[in-house]
């Protein structure tokens, strides 16, 4: 059992580390993996004080490392949030974007930006937006008694479309000088992600919290009645998933704006490869989602260097064909 869980997770961890070294080495100044290693070690041991090394050190440790770690955290958060929503709705197409969570979070964050607020206020406002969206969707669906996944999905889709319209309205009414920043942010951009530690900690904490719930989630994936008959307190668990997914989405959105498809493609691909045990899928999503976004962001900042692309464009360009291919093949 431990081997069954440990082996794929070990491989994914190695892939994540390899991607981190690539992300740190590639850019305006190329560094070999060995140099990256030296810089990281040099930092730890405080050796290598000559000038070239000092420059490389600054670049890697103060520019590339925070950005790469932020990308990892955001990718992991989105993939885990997507996997959780898919279990909740028993629908592999569910994802924080489809259900309007990201739209709500984006509006919260944009409103804070328009109000001239920064930092923590944007995070709080985004979480508020995600939570309002959650309550709105669940409230509307639950209002008339029992809810079905398809009804929840449809409500989410309509609410998401509504948020999309509100975002357009906000952009139309915003002062022109703020537009480029907001647009870039809406497309998903990691250029300003400098503080990876809080999303990384959140990702780690989520994995630790969600792991003991894994078997309950497996049972919940078979439908609420079956789950209740096997001893799961269904409604509290469903609320817990929805709130955790909102929190993860809000954290991801405040760090990097709107990045699509990670929450959809990563869990789907992992389920095809590893099966449906959530105790394996959720940590695997954290690692694979993080790796994918870290690589995508490396592409985004190097492809047309010195210009940078928003990473959301890359994930969409990679995600759409991958997803269509998987759908086509899985029939």
């Amino acid at each position, binding site marked *: *059992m431990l081997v069954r869980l440990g082996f794929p997770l070990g491989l994914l961890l190695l892939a994540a580390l390899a991607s981190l070294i690539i992300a740190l080495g590639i850019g305006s100044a190329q560094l070999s993996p060995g140099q990256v290693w030296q810089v990281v070690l040099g930092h730890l041991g405080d050796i290598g004080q000559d000038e070239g090394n000092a420059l490389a050190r600054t670049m890697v440790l103060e520019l590339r490392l925070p950005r790469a770690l932020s990308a990892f955290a955001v990718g992991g958060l989105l993939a885990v949030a997507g996997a959780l929503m898919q279990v909740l709705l028993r629908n592999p197409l569910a994802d924080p974007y489809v259900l309007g969570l990201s739209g709500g979070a984006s509006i919260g964050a944009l409103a804070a930006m328009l109000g001239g607020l920064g930092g923590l206020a944007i995070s709080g406002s985004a979480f508020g937006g995600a939570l309002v969206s959650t309550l709105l969707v669940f409230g509307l669906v639950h209002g008339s008694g029992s809810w079905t996944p398809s009804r929840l999905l449809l409500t989410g889709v309509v609410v998401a479309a509504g948020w999309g319209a509100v975002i357009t309205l906000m952009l139309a009414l915003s002062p022109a000088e703020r537009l480029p920043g907001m647009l870039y942010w809406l497309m998903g951009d990691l250029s300003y992600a400098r503080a990876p530690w809080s999303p990384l900690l959140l990702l780690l904490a989520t994995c630790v919290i969600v792991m003991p719930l894994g*078997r309950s989630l497996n049972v919940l994936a*078979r439908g609420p*009645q*079956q789950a209740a008959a*096997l001893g799961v*307190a*269904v409604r509290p668990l469903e609320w817990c998933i929805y709130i955790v997914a909102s929190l993860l989405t809000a954290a991801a959105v405040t760090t990097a704006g709107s990045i699509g498809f990670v929450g959809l493609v990563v869990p789907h691909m992992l389920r095809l490869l590893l*099966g*449906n045990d959530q105790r394996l899928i959720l940590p695997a999503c954290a690692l694979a989602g993080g790796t994918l976004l870290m690589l995508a962001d490396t592409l985004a900042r190097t492809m047309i260097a010195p210009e940078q692309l928003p990473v959301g464009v890359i994930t969409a360009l990679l995600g759409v064909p991958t997803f269509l291919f998987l759908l086509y093949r899985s029939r």
Partner: protein
Amino acid sequence: MSRLVTQDLIINVPGRGDGTALNIAIEPGQVWGVLGPNGAGKTTLLHTLAGLNAPRSGQVLLGEQPLETLSRRQVAQMLGVVFQERLDGFPATVLETALIGRHPYLSPWQMEGADDYAQAEAALERLDVAHLRDRLVSTLSGGERQRVAMATVLTQAPSIWLADEPTNHLDLHHQSAVMALMAQQAAQGSTVMMCLHDLNLAARWCDHLLLLYPSGEACWGARDSMLVPSALERLYHQRLAVVEVEGAPVFVPIKE
């Protein structure tokens, strides 16, 4: 502990009058059959007894304890439900599906151990689906899926079985095998209640019957006192002929 009792229980079927309040005591060792036409509320009754639907009034006791005072986990350690309808959601193998029957007994951090696997495999063997253990449930036939669902509850090893049409989709041999399994569970001290459409299976394998009318009226008692052709004809709005085979009555609908 495996006694199931209803006190003035009225199940909640929307848009229907209260009908008869149910005061039933199902004792260990008994096999009860619930008979009634489509829409009479058989499934609702079963779900109410399992605590999955709230009753309109009255209560259900598991042993001496009211059902609603127990946690879902405590209930699941005593009472197992075979559902008529199942969702597949995500693909899962037959063995994984049987293994979730161990969920009520495992703590959150605990992985399934060798004992749990052994129990699941024995249940698959008992239901004659062990050869399918690594197949995806979604690729099985209706009857095979029905037997996998039974195997899941057998893995759960409850002392109270509530089975909603356990013979659905099954061929004749497996119908008999499943009914024999239910009878065996009862003989080992379990309490069994099942909804059935097949009068003849009920006549053959159940020792108590509950007749549920679409109006919500109900009557119950020992099998022989309930298998009155006129009562059954009124229940199904269908004229019946009765013949006797191996000492048990066999009911055949008469062509109108």
